[in-house]
């Protein structure tokens, strides 16, 4: 399983993904610039990513808690998500996303 992540400088990386892991954890483990300061508790907005158009409908929709927390990210778009709230599964093999500026450590 893989995810494809474009970082804040525009460089694209192919990351080995693990079933059941939060996408935030996969990105952090790989060493890309993601702050994720609350550690995956949906309590900050520093793991903010933009999900590629083709993949938006394949994700579980955000919970109210995630939508509330996104208020704290400054650079919100329609495809904004918190990557700690996306759980990796077979269906998401090949998931494409871009790290938001506000996720920068």
């Amino acid at each position, binding site marked *: 399983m893989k995810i494809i992540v474009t970082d804040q400088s525009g460089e694209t990386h192919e990351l080995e993904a693990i079933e059941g892991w939060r996408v935030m954890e996969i990105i952090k483990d790989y060493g890309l610039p993601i702050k994720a300061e609350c550690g995956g508790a949906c309590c900050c907005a520093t793991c903010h990513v933009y999900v590629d158009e083709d993949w938006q409908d394949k994700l579980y929709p955000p919970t109210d808690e995630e939508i509330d927390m996104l*208020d704290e990210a400054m650079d919100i778009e329609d495809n904004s998500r918190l990557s700690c709230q996306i759980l990796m599964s077979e269906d998401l093999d090949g998931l494409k996303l871009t790290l938001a500026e506000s996720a920068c450590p």
Partner: protein
Amino acid sequence: MTQDTAHKTDAIIIGAGPVGLFAVFELGLLDMKAHLVDILDKPGGQCAELYPEKPIYDIPAYPIITGQELTDRLMEQIEPFGPVFHLQQMAESLEKMDNGHWKLTTDDKITIEAPVIIIAAGGGSFMPKKPNIKNLEDFEGTSVFYSVKQMEKFRGKNLLIAGGGDSALDWTLNLQPLAQSLSLVHRRDEFRAAPDSVNKMRGLVEDRKMDLHVGDIKELHGENGKLSRVVVQKRGEEPYAVECDTLLAFYGLTMKLGPIANFGLNLHENLIPVDTEKFETSEAGIFAIGDINHYPGKLKLILSGFHEAALMAQQAFRYVHPDKKLRFQYTTSSTDLQNKLGVNDKDEAA
């Protein structure tokens, strides 16, 4: 310098998160008093600010405990040692004195002197998140603020408050009676603040006592640091101007290393390298424990920070009590330690 703002103690702990709090305990067992400095208005650090209601599962002997419960239990555990808290204070500068002790100064110019400094600052200081507006800095401190220290400062102002959480809503309700005019601006017409506050705010809007704008702040306009209007835009709609002379922005907090970077310590990617025997930094007498330190194999766990606090205290003792011999004792058996903890009083009375 008044007595209220100049302090002396055995150990200064920067950061009142779980690791800073537990350091009070370990220092206390070895007869060292501690003062704590924290930028938040309450102890607990990330546990209290970011995730007070969230369960933590990896604290030994607690299969499940919330961030706030952990903070409360630590406060109870260190109570016998009488720690002194300096809250809403940022540790701003550190200097070495002629007697070899350290003098810490906060942003409110409180000074504390001690032979030992313990940096337990986690991910750094909690600082306000700022909107991406290019001339924001021109207005900061004169027309744009991120907190309210004195409500009177906002009397008679044409105030714009930004945000959708409890801070934004609470200050909207508190400042509305004082302000000349007040508007609230938020990205969407839903609020994560307490429903009661949201209802009260909507009531004020219905009574035409304040305005609500749904959208993002795009531009600030004014001269010489004095704001005159801001441009607000809802996604996909035309931008428009809102007249105001003061902006209070509540977009949440994020952690930044802050002035600790200028303490003259060696740094490794914004972390402080320490040895794994004493958790001492590149400066003798300055220790770093918890998430802020770095050493081979480091794990950012509260549990690791507790261990680091215990070993740190052994070395801190040598600086604070150079003439005394350090004896290792257990709380289960040592009458001396039990007296310090105040758990022997009943037996003695009987």
